[in-house]
């Protein structure tokens, strides 16, 4: 089945000829050489400055280090998942506002979308960290990080939802209306479930951004992966090694999210493709 999977590149460009292939090979060679050269340079620099010294790396042989990092990962995931759920909820509401029949509602929703998309996460965070307490409301640090991350992403999520809704063929809505379904049921039972399928990859990409935004947790001293990494660094004076390991962990988390997104997209394509093949046979 995998060879039936047509990549975007295959669909957009014609298959490369011999000349193009040679040029591509040369380009690849040069790029690889450059990367190798850089890598050697970096490692050499580390070696010269003593960053490869075992004292910086031996901390990773202790189980307490990993336990501490594990707690950080748990904190990061907790914030990311909660913020993800909230931002999908807010995004859904904003999207409903954006497609509302009422001009006023549409205007308000559009303003909120632009506002949340335009303001950096850190500003929202400062708002919950510095401004909200002045009104006598002190939130736990978990919410001081989770809410701003969620709010900062919800405008984009709303627009992603909306693009999905717009992609659903208008005949679907008409067919549902024609059997007498109410407008709200048409949306909830026919249009939105299909819209979601179109935008799963885009939604998961937005979750990656949510995960990255959780690193602002250090501002409110919530023990996420980044915050715990900072503690390790100051305890062991091991800046580079800890940052490298933490970077790899973040990459792994986001890589898994992207894999999930690919998986979802491919499953959808596969159903469609199998569908078309069977359809032609007309079983």
């Amino acid at each position, binding site marked *: 089945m995998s060879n039936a999977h047509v990549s975007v590149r295959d669909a957009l460009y014609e298959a490369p000829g011999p000349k193009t292939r040679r040029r591509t090979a040369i380009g690849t060679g040069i790029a690889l050489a450059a990367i190798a050269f850089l890598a050697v340079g970096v490692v050499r620099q580390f070696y010269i400055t003593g960053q490869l010294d075992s004292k910086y790396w031996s901390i990773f042989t202790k189980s307490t280090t990993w336990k501490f990092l594990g707690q950080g990962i748990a904190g990061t995931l907790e914030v990311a998942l909660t913020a993800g759920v909230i931002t999908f909820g807010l995004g859904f509401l904003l999207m409903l506002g954006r497609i509302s029949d009422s001009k006023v509602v549409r205007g308000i929703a559009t303003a909120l979308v632009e506002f949340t998309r335009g303001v950096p996460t850190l500003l929202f965070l400062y708002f919950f960290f510095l401004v909200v307490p002045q009104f006598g409301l002190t939130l736990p640090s978990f919410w001081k990080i989770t809410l701003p991350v969620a709010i900062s992403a919800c405008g984009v999520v709303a627009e992603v939802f909306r693009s999905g809704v717009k992609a659903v*063929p208008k*005949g*679907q809505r*008409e*067919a*549902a*209306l*024609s*059997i*007498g*379904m*109410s407008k709200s*049921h048409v949306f909830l*039972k*026919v249009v939105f*479930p*299909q819209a979601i*399928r179109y935008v799963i990859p885009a939604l998961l990409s937005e979750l990656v951004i949510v995960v990255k935004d959780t690193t602002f947790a250090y501002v409110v001293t919530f023990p996420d992966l980044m915050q715990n990494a900072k503690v390790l660094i100051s305890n062991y004076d091991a800046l580079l090694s800890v940052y490298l390991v933490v970077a790899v962990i973040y990459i792994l988390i986001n890589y898994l999210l992207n894999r999930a997104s690919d998986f979802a997209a491919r499953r959808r394509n596969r*159903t*469609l493709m*199998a*569908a*078309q093949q*069977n*359809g*032609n046979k*007309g*079983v």
Partner: protein
Amino acid sequence: MEKQSKPNTPEQTPVIELRHVDKHYGQLHVLKDINLSVKKGEVVVIIGPSGSGKSTLCRTINRMETINSGEILIDGTAIPQEGKELARLRAQVGMVFQSFNLFAHKTILDNVTLGPTDVLHVPKKEAREEAIKLLKRVGVDTQAAKLPAQLSGGQQQRVAIARSLAMHPKAILFDEPTSALDPEMIGEVLDVMTELAKEGMTMVVVTHEMNFARRVADRVIFMDGGAIIEENTPEEFFTHPNTQRAQDFLNSIKNH
């Protein structure tokens, strides 16, 4: 046909009635003073050149398109403008589209049961049983668990007809139901429609299938430029139409 010889008792209100219906798209006058009345069990076929307003006419009957003036009555009741009342009326008038429009994310069975369960509040089990009967009737019951995209066009259109029937409509509107189909699948859909007509379903059919119109229609409506130009029996219409425009139209399709 015998349907026409039914006594025209006074209580027999038309299932569909349009009175002086006008519609504009901006400057374009797409429906011009349309008057049309469809009795219970009647099959009315609408034909006419492209852009003459056939689809628009069809779509105004369940208010997929609004009208600028005039009146449309279903079973003697004016079509409500919006809300629950409009939805309730739409549930009584089935619609079959050129592009099938089956719910892409639902199985064939769920396509048919959605209306009854969601709109008529029929219990799930009952709705499934009836759906299977209907699918059998249109000959696609073996496909019940599949998704629409897994079916051929002809099968999809037959499911769309079953989906309409599941609502027990007073009438069904067909807007070029076979125009998107490969030639070998047109017959199977027309057969189902012929069957429905025989069973006494009230139908308004926009189509280019002249043989179907000749065989099944009780009345042929010829439209051009947004107006009804001629209304006739199929025998009369296809052998010697009353209007020159209808004659020209019939000649133009014969030459194809």
